């Protein structure tokens, strides 16, 4: 049974861990101000750094951005794994439940609705706690709606379709709000939808980290149940699983992970769908317990890589992360579909 594939498998973990560390360091070097690796290291480690400006840039801007990428990547890819497992659908992702659409509506109401109503002329987008709250509220409301439905509907496919329907309906409401809002508000909102990893402050990163780690811990406790769900819901029930309770917990965890990320970074696409598939291919398994650690680390690695690409070297401009993940993600998904022929083979 020993083959070249086996020896590749043996070095996967060292490789992705090294990659993670290199990407974290590399991403710290990225930004509009050119800083040397030495300066970066000094700013991170020294108690009283020699260069105040460099330290401020690293500690107040780049480190939160890098950490946001790490935690958002973990959260999105794990929620993708959860959704693909629950729906037994290879194209399910963090957004199938309409959670990010809910967050968008919340943000749209704050940015477009209230601001045009109360004639706020200026709304500072990054770090605005009202926006955070709105995004969180929006995703929780959609999640609650979905939980109510899922407690009544037996067929998981019906829930998937309803999730997509909720998403469409909410997106339509957002479109109406956009139509009636003024240009600057609209631009602010559009920029939010393009996603950003660099609008989080250090304090917000702590909160994001707490929520993501909490979500990952609950997922770790659910791994046994998720594996059973791979065999189909009826088989899971025949093995003694409480289906409705487990569904509810999985939806809540997904809501927590996706809601937190969307609130801070906007809706970031594709990571959630592709990372579980990359993990399945790399580790050559669909066993959720064995995929879980790889999915977490790969999620961080891939979103960090996306952030690295989004920085145009030597310029202050940063490409919207959503565009970067889509440009990188679409070819990967297409390649996987063509390579596997059958979509079911992806799972």
């Amino acid at each position, binding site marked *: 049974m020993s083959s070249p594939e086996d020896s590749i498998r043996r070095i996967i973990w060292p490789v992705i861990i090294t990659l993670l560390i290199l990407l974290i360091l590399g991403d710290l070097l990225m930004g509009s101000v050119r800083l040397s690796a030495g300066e970066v290291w000094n700013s991170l480690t020294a108690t009283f750094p020699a260069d105040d400006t460099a330290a401020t840039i690293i500690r107040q801007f780049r480190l939160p951005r890098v950490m946001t990428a790490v935690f958002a990547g973990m959260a999105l890819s794990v929620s993708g794994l959860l959704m693909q497992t629950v729906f037994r659908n290879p194209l399910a992702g963090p957004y199938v439940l309409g959670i990010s659409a809910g967050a968008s509506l919340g943000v749209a109401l704050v940015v477009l609705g209230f601001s045009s109503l109360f004639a706020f002329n200026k709304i500072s987008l990054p770090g605005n706690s009202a926006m955070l709250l709105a995004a969180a509220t929006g995703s929780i409301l959609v999640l609650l709606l979905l939980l109510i439905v899922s407690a009544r509907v037996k067929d998981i496919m019906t829930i998937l379709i309803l999730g997509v329907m909720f998403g469409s309906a909410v997106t339509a409401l957002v479109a109406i709000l956009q139509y009636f809002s003024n240009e600057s508000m609209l631009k602010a909102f559009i920029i939010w939808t393009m996603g950003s990893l660099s609008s989080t402050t250090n304090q917000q990163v702590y909160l994001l980290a707490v929520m993501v780690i909490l979500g990952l811990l609950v997922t770790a406790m659910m*791994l046994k149940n998720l594996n059973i769900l791979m065999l189909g819901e009826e088989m899971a*029930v025949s*093995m*003694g*699983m409480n289906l409705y309770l487990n569904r509810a917990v999985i939806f809540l965890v997904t809501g927590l992970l996706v809601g937190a990320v969307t609130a801070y970074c906007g809706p970031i696409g594709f990571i959630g769908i592709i990372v579980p598939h990359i993990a399945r291919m790399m580790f050559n*398994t*669909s066993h959720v317990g064995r995929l879980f650690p790889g999915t977490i680390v790969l999620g961080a690695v891939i979103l960090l890589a996306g952030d690295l690409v989004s920085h145009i070297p030597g310029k202050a401009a940063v490409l919207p992360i959503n565009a970067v993940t889509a440009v990188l993600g679409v070819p990967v998904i297409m390649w996987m579909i063509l390579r596997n022929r059958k979509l079911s083979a992806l*799972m």
Partner: protein
Amino acid sequence: MLTLKQLDTGFITTQGQRRILASGLDLSAREGELTAIVGPNGIGKSTLLRTIMRLQPALGGTIDIDGRNTSGFSTRDFARFCSFVPAGKIPVARLTVEEIITLARYPHTGWFGKLSPEDIRIVEEAIYSLNLQDLRLRFIDELSDGEKQRTWIARALAQGTPLVILDEPTAFLDIPNRFEIYRLLRQIAVSQHRLFLFASHDLEFVSDMTDKIWMLLPGEFFEGAPEDIISGGILDKLFRHSGITFHPEKGLMFPQPEPEKYLVITGDSSQCQWIKRALKRAGFGIITEVQQHPFAHIFCSKNEIVLEKNDRKIRFSSVYALILFLKTNH
């Protein structure tokens, strides 16, 4: 021991109406035996199995395991008494045979599914019972249908339940694999003292290899040894209006249309037997003596077939060539 008392099966429509498929079922099955549910399509065999499995509610009556009503069990407790092998293909990929069978220990393990030595022993026993030891590290999606079905049965065994319910376990399998599955089920039923209850359309296997048959028919039901069902003429009710009969020696007999033309066959009897079969299928009647103005006369020997008609002799090297000639030259 599984006992159904006055059980009504069926489903409740979205409008809240009760659609009863079978009512007042009084049936039983015991450990160490294979019990098959036989009946026409749509009679509710799967519904009955799913009702026993508690995947859908009973519309009346009770289901007891060893005298305890199953409706009082928690989902987890029930999973320790009864396991399930569903009908159809289960779309799972990139899970190994061993991983799938190990998952069956779910109702017996804690939060993280950590296996005790006893769990591992039970998994190993299941793997060996179904002869899967050489396939244990293979992915389920790479296996043949027979191997897949053995894996799902092993999974059910590893769940450690006295009752194992299978919905058409041999539906996708060829004859040797069907035989293999029934042979293994028999062996395990006796050696591990398990109760296997399954739906099946394989009348020939079922009449030969099961200990008991539950027969569901429109408005009635029967239970008994296969011989009780066959000799009591109950099995023929299954074929009502179809013209099919079940012969204890020959198995299923299908009706043939009334022939228009008759042929006389003489010669080597073992060869003639196959030619007669082919001729019957092609719509010809067979007679042994020249009395009914036969269409033609056929002589068969080990090497060739000779057709004689109006003093012309034509030689054929295969049964197929003969039939083709008869079909095209009237």
